């Protein structure tokens, strides 16, 4: 019934590892997909994806959208303890309404 499903729910890795976070969704008609990082306070924006197959990159983080298979992934390479956070994905529906997934809790151990 959830429109946006994130996996895994939580993940523990060691510094230097590479992680892949998944976001699958059911809606086929949407404006864009967003990724957020939430540490202790408010979510902060990471990426907006609108087109399938085009990778967005920012430092060690990258993300891609697959509109055919209805999913997006967020990759983090060479993880650091500062990457520990909850990662949220959200669909932007028409009408500018966002539907969030439950999030993936990432913990990076030193």
């Amino acid at each position: 019934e959830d429109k946006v499903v994130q996996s895994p729910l939580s993940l523990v890795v060691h510094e230097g590892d590479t992680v892949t976070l998944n976001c699958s969704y059911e809606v086929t008609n949407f404006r864009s997909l967003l990724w957020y990082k939430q540490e202790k306070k408010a979510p902060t924006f990471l990426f907006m994806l609108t087109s399938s197959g085009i990778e967005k990159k920012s430092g060690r983080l990258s993300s891609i959208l697959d509109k055919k298979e209805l999913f997006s992934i967020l990759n983090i390479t060479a993880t650091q303890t500062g990457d520990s956070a909850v990662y949220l994905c959200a669909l932007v529906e028409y009408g500018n309404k966002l539907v969030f997934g439950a999030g993936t809790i990432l913990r990076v151990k030193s």
Partner: protein
Amino acid sequence: DAGITQSPRYKITETGRQVTLMCHQTWSHSYMFWYRQDLGHGLRLIYYSAAADITDKGEVPDGYVVSRSKTENFPLTLESATRSQTSVYFCASSLLRGGFDTGELFFGEGSRLTVL
């Protein structure tokens, strides 16, 4: 200071009391939203507003009331608080720039509400 601010940041109340959480933004963003965040559920939309005097229900509106008499303010009222409304509440706003809609939300720092 420019931005989006919420108050109070922390509130403890009792079952049955009325509580209002305030949200103020200085960007003149058209859209404003109220979300609640609970473990295992992520962020769930309570109400949103596309402009002053225009509001609409989100996913979990029961027990909440909103108003938007001015573009910059979007208060959320719990008319008779229940324990199930214990949560962290986030207000957010979004810019709609002509034909280009980024969909990006700017969040306030959250209001942690405990209902005893």
